[in-house]
């Protein structure tokens, strides 16, 4: 960072709009599937025809309770839907149904890791609300098109405390939350389609001050990379402004990915008075402890619990355990591999985080799309563990498996890749190598260790990599009398 961060402290809080994975809208039966033709998923309620009324989708409440349980928060026994009144063409009712004074989820927390350190970020609240439609500019000859397919899509707005002190912490929090909402299966996490959008509140203050500076809100960040850039730019801009004797005015800003800059969109002083009041069309949302228990019973084990289990049951290091719980799919894949393999978990961990991750990354695939299933991978690991193949050959077999050539065993058979562990065969190869490399033998005998490794290499080469390296070592040492 270019700015002088010995003098200033940045304070960051996030508001995250999470689109919930329900089938229908939050207050009507219309579908929320992405990408439909404009206004084909706009029922009479979505269009806000005269006389229509909202009916709460219980599935959305289920999702909110799941999040509440996952962040160890208070679930409000009674919360209230309120109307946020403002005019906008893609807001069909002229108000958004949201929660204001009494949200469904109260104070909770999320633990992040930054630079090897753990930090707990407090989550102030999470509330249910409906999304607006979309205004479409262009293609309309100077007019604006309105698509109300998205109007009424269920959102859970998750609001953090201003607990983050760097862009890295903010990104770590956002990533962790992104992982979590997918882990508990309430959001598909698709940032390009807007399923997970972050507004970031940034302010700076002199180090040591306990008074918050004036914040500016960076709206609608839809990638972690942009979030990092936007916060860094914004922080620097605020510090420079203050150091130049200027003042920060509360404002909403947009990040321009092309220039890497943030720019004020509208000043908050001109902001609407939203005239919130309880929506008389909806009764207060009452959540019984029985319902909470019912939801709890459907909850998957959470990442931190699984991390602990990986460390205890499989003896993995904290770093490995964290990496293997970055998503539920990866954790499930790893567990399935271990179960099918039955051997040393560290070996499975190395392969999942190594070759599998590299390949997925290279081909931009999710682990669920991996052509090498946990069972196939386990088959390969078994052959490594019982010394049928060497690590080097294993890589070659893995490539073949990835290409769909079958199981490890069938590839080993077909390609004759079985490790040579027959001592007679190895001795024969060693003798040939010793004869052909008299100079090196002389060097070894003169005490040059490097030459010994050279001979090992020659033997491996002569065996096309199939000779058991440990046996090669032993036989060589015997023959050379060292």
């Amino acid at each position, binding site marked *: 960072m270019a700015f002088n961060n010995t003098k200033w402290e940045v304070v960051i809080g996030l508001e995250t709009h999470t689109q919930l994975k329900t089938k229908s809208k939050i207050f009507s039966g219309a579908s929320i599937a992405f990408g439909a033709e404009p206004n084909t998923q706009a029922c009479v309620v979505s269009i806000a025809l005269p006389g229509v009324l909202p009916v709460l989708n219980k599935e959305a409440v289920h999702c909110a309770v799941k999040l509440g349980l996952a962040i160890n928060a208070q679930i409000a026994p009674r919360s209230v839907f309120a109307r946020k009144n403002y005019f906008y063409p893609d807001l069909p009712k002229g108000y958004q149904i949201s929660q204001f004074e009494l949200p469904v989820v109260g104070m909770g927390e999320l633990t992040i890791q930054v630079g090897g350190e753990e930090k707990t970020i407090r989550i102030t609240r999470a509330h249910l609300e409906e999304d607006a439609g979309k205004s479409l500019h262009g293609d309309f000859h100077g007019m604006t098109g309105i698509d109300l397919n998205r109007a009424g899509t269920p959102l859970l707005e998750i609001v953090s405390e201003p607990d983050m002190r760097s862009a890295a912490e903010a990104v770590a929090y956002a990533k962790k939350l992104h992982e979590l909402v997918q882990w508990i299966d309430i959001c598909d996490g698709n940032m390009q389609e807007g399923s997970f959008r972050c507004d970031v509140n940034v302010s700076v203050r002199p180090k040591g001050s306990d008074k918050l500076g004036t914040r500016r809100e960076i709206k609608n960040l839809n990638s972690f990379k942009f979030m990092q850039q936007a916060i860094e730019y914004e922080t620097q801009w605020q510090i420079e402004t203050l150091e130049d004797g200027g003042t920060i005015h509360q404002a909403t800003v947009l990040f321009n990915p092309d220039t890497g800059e943030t720019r004020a969109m509208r000043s908050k002083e001109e902001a609407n008075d939203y*005239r919130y*009041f309880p929506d*008389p*069309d909806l*009764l207060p949302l009452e959540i019984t402890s029985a319902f909470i228990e019912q939801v709890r019973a459907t909850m998957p084990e959470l990442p931190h619990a699984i991390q602990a289990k990986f460390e205890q049951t499989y003896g993995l290091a904290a770093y490995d355990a964290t990496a293997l719980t970055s998503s539920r799919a990866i954790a499930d894949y790893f567990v399935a591999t271990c179960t099918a393999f039955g051997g040393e978990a560290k070996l499975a961990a190395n392969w999942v985080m190594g070759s599998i991750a590299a390949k997925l990354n290279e081909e931009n695939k999710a682990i669920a799309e991996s052509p090498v299933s946990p069972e196939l991978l386990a088959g390969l690991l078994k052959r490594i563990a019982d010394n049928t193949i060497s690590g080097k050959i294993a890589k070659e077999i893995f490539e073949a498996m990835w290409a769909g050539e079958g199981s490890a065993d069938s590839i080993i058979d077909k390609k004759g890749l079985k490790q040579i562990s027959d001592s007679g065969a190895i001795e024969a190869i060693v003798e040939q190598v010793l004869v052909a490399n008299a100079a090196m033998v002389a060097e070894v005998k003169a005490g040059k260790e490097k030459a010994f490794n050279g001979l090992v290499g020659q033997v491996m080469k002569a065996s096309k990599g199939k000779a058991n390296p440990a046996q090669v070592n032993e036989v060589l040492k015997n023959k050379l009398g060292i």
Partner: protein
Amino acid sequence: MINRSLKQLATMLANKQISSVEITSEYLKRIAQHNPEINAFITLNPEKTLAQAAAADQRIAQGNAEPLTGIPLAQKDIFCAKGWRTTCGSKMLENFIAPYDAGVIERFDAAGAVNLGKTNMDEFAMGSSNETSYFGKVQNPWDRARVPGGSSGGAAAAVAARLCAAATGTDTGGSIRQPASLCGFSGLKPTYGLVSRYGMIAFASSLDQAGPMAKSCEDMALMLNVMAGFDSRDSTSLEHEKEDYTRKLKDNSSDKPLAGLKVGLPKEYFAEGLDGAVAKVVNDAIDQYRKLGAEIVDISLPNTMLSIPVYYVLAPAEASSNLSRYDGVRYGHRASQYDDLMDMYCKSRAEGFGAEVKRRILIGTYVLSAGYYDAYYLKAQQIRRLIAQDFTEAFKQCDIIMGPAAPSTAFNAGEKVDDPVSMYLQDIYTIAVNLAGLPGMSIPAGFASSDDGKPLPVGLQIIGNYFDEARMLSVGHAYQQVTDWHTRMPEGV
């Protein structure tokens, strides 16, 4: 035919003495004759109406008629009815053809009733005289210079002038009961949540409730049998066990059929502000109840005077938000010329809404604004609970509450249009019932002479406890067997 009860019409239909098409045609003829002056209907569609009547006749012929099959009813223009223009009395919706049916309309359709047309009303149900309608004022059939009351003024005139067999209305602060009183027929606002609000254009969501307007309590019971019932599309609809509202309607078997019934008279309903002639009629009606065996007890509803200020905070607050959807973007009136988005909103709404609607939007916007919310909206909600509490206490001392439905008889058109507060006082006896969510009704109790000697109807209001509609109807029915006020018809129709 036009004075027959719904039950009598059903019997005639079942016996093939008359067909639905014939009854319907007769009403359409009467409407064609009188509506140009009375202006009770905003929209008629004889073709659609007669097709429904013909279908009802078929259903009767097949032998699966229900009590209202083939009966022509007038629907307040606040209910969306598929394929019907639905204006809510506003220029804003002058050309709005509803693409779906309200819950109430669906239920009447399923029962085989015939939709005669959409009745005139105060714009978005905001008014007590039907004078705020974009589609013109409605005449009171008893004195054409006078108002029918509001907001269900078109329905009221239609029932009083026998332009329909019965009608639907909605009541947010008295919009069924006050016109019932002013036009001399029976009107009931049920317990909040009993009748679905789905498809009923919202004025003030926490107060709006639909109900029947008819010639007698018996007719209202038959109407309510169709209208009442849970609707999953309305979150404020109550899951209440299905009732037959006719079940307590009994022939007076003795001199004192109401022996054991305790009737409470709230002293606040007979205080200053009540017209003397109206008070006399109401007191006579109460004497009649005494004769029928009821015990009359004095009660108090101490917060009655607060109900108007509370109502005129809460109802406009909800309305200001409910009416935000009329922005000219998707349907409804859009200004023909505008510079930009804000200009389009402003012009469309300025042109589309009338003065009273604008007044209430302004009041509502103000009371919800930052800095005023606590003093107005929140305070009003607290007092609303006190008003409901008044009734809870009162019902510990009596079974039924009686009093006037309106402080005066019908007033002259134009008399109160420039004096909104005096207009708002029309609802002084009805509003608290909406705030408490209780059922209330008005039945004809006699007449008071106007200044020029014309007889003008006076209604008796009967307020019951939650879900006590069946008893209220039976109490009204007992009275209607010993009086004939409800059978009187204005001259000249």
